[in-house]
């Protein structure tokens, strides 16, 4: 940047009349004097009744000076000093006048509100809860109707969308689901091996890993990976569509976003999660077998035979039912949060976070409830 003289401000007092001498370059790229400075200068001349400007030494100015003078005018008004702007450059006077004379849009009802009290917040939260419960009910109501129309073959959505979502949520998730399941199987195997080795009952590692994986862990791991991977993507996608008014565009065309967007996602996850869970079960058992053979010294065939003996159809059915429920939960929370999304970039972020959190919380609750139900009906 070229050498420019820094902005200066001085005060010449002549009894009641004071002159503010402005010099140098009053541009935004300079370190501009603060209004406080002028206030102090003025305070030294309590008798002043009239303020004039001398800008002979001014080499340049922009909004920096305009806002300074605007602030000064306000200061003069509170102190009862007449502010005579004739000494300022004509362009600057015009800009000052412009901001003052332009009709300003009347302010809406939005004012800086004081921080709400505890009771206000409690009440507000309760009302929010009621509203969001209503929204969730509406979502499930509409969802059920959409599903009914699907069963009657009347739902309107693109079948290519369904296949694409199934591929994205299912096949594309194989590597990550496989890796996580294998590692979880290994972890279970290690813990089991350490404990069972004390009794010399290492062969039962196969029972422990096999049952835990097939009944619960395979489905749970799959669901949590899907919540982070697919549920978040659903919320972000639908939320962005909400921001771009794409959802409104569907509605005005008489296409229910519930059928067009939510239904294929629900169907895709309900179909794909059990399949992924079976795959996760296999990889989990392999993880356990890896530990059992390498650390526990059991032969692979013995390990697999023991696993086969331990697992019954009732266990597999439990796991598949759980996986289906989890898949529905992940799809529903992703779509619900996306549909509830506000109309800003920040809202999309919140919707995504909230979709993952909602999904995981409800998956864990469902896991607990299902365990009790399976026990009650004698599946376990």
């Amino acid at each position, binding site marked *: 940047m070229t050498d420019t003289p820094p902005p200066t401000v001085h005060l010449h007092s002549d009894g009641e009349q004071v002159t503010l001498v402005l010099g140098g370059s009053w541009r935004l790229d300079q370190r501009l004097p603060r209004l406080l400075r002028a206030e102090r200068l003025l305070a030294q001349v309590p008798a002043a009744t009239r303020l004039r400007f001398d800008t002979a030494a001014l080499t340049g100015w922009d909004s920096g000076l305009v806002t300074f003078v605007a602030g000064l005018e306000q200061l003069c008004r509170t102190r009862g000093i007449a502010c005579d702007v004739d000494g300022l450059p004509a362009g600057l006077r015009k800009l000052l006048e412009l901001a003052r004379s*332009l009709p*300003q849009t009347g302010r809406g009802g*939005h004012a800086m509100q004081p921080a709400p009290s505890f009771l206000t917040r409690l009440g507000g939260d309760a009302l929010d809860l009621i509203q969001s419960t209503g929204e969730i009910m509406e979502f499930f109501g509409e969802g059920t109707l959409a599903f009914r129309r699907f069963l009657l073959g009347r739902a309107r959505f693109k079948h290519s969308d369904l296949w694409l979502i199934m591929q994205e949520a299912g096949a594309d998730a194989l590597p990550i689901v496989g890796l996580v399941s294998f590692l979880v199987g290994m972890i279970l195997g290690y813990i089991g091996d350490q404990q069972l080795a004390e009794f010399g009952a290492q062969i039962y590692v196969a029972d422990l890993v096999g049952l835990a994986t097939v009944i619960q862990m395979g489905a749970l791991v799959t669901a949590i990976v899907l919540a982070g991977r697919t549920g978040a993507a659903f919320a972000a996608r639908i939320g962005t569509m909400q921001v771009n008014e794409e959802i409104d565009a569907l509605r005005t065309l008489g296409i229910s976003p519930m059928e067009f967007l939510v239904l294929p996602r629900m169907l895709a996850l309900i179909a794909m999660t059990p399949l992924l869970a079976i795959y996760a079960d296999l990889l989990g058992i392999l993880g356990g077998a890896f530990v059992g053979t390498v650390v526990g010294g059991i032969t692979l065939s013995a390990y697999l035979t023991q696993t086969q003996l331990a697992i019954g159809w009732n266990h597999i059915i439990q796991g598949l039912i759980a996986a289906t429920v989890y898949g529905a939960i992940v799809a529903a929370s992703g779509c619900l949060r996306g549909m509830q999304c506000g109309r*800003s*970039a920040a809202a999309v972020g919140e919707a995504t976070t909230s979709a993952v959190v909602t999904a995981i919380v409800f998956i864990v609750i469902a896991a607990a409830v299902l365990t009790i139900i399976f026990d009650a009906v004698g599946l376990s």
Partner: protein
Amino acid sequence: MSDAEHEAGVASAPVHIRLEGISLGYGETLVQRDLTFDIHRGDVFVIMGGSGCGKSTVMRCVTGLLAPWSGRVLLGGESLWQLSAARRNTLMRRNGVMYQSGALWSSMTLEENICLPLEQYTRLAPEQMRAIAEYKLALVGLAGYGDHYPAEISGGMRKRVGVARAMALDPEILFFDEPSAGLDPLSARRLDELILELRDSLGTTMVVITHELDSIFTIADDAVFLDADSKTMLATGNPHALRDHSPVAQVRAFLTRGEADIDAVA
């Protein structure tokens, strides 16, 4: 301001932006080719043409967002696309751009939107920045709205805040992408007046993309007409003169809403 004054201004002012043989496009698709024209300092320059002719693309090239396929963009004599990235950044900072829908950052209040460029590029104290933000908001008729978020105001207001943010650093060149699109006639008129007032007070060079005839005849000192079919410019000059004397029938048709041989429209 009369036409005679417009033309006198055009003749005397130095060149601020010069395009030399610019061709540009996206991927394999050519948008415009062989663009050569000058924009003079302190002028209101209008880039006009039908929808989809590449007006916004040309603006993206001049504002440093899209490299041209060939040709040079000279900003005050420096060739924008031959400079180092750092130097180009410095030049870009002297431009203010108002995007079509405002493009306000939705997670910040209006005041924070305007203060962000000030925080990044000046050494002002926080209260000075706030004073400038408040002043710029007053310039677009929105004094007192600083604590609102973009989602809380109407589309037209967002546009005006977009102008205020573009002006935050007192740019040498202000670009407006379709300023009057989506505004009611009165607001559009006020925005036109604001553009002229700011030019007169600050001497800012204004580059306006528009196809609103009222606006073109009110504000433009100089203009270029881009054509979508031949993918190049068909004419440059003052829109009044182009309407009355342009040898190109398409340009006359555009400027008279297709009634090419009627003399006075505006």
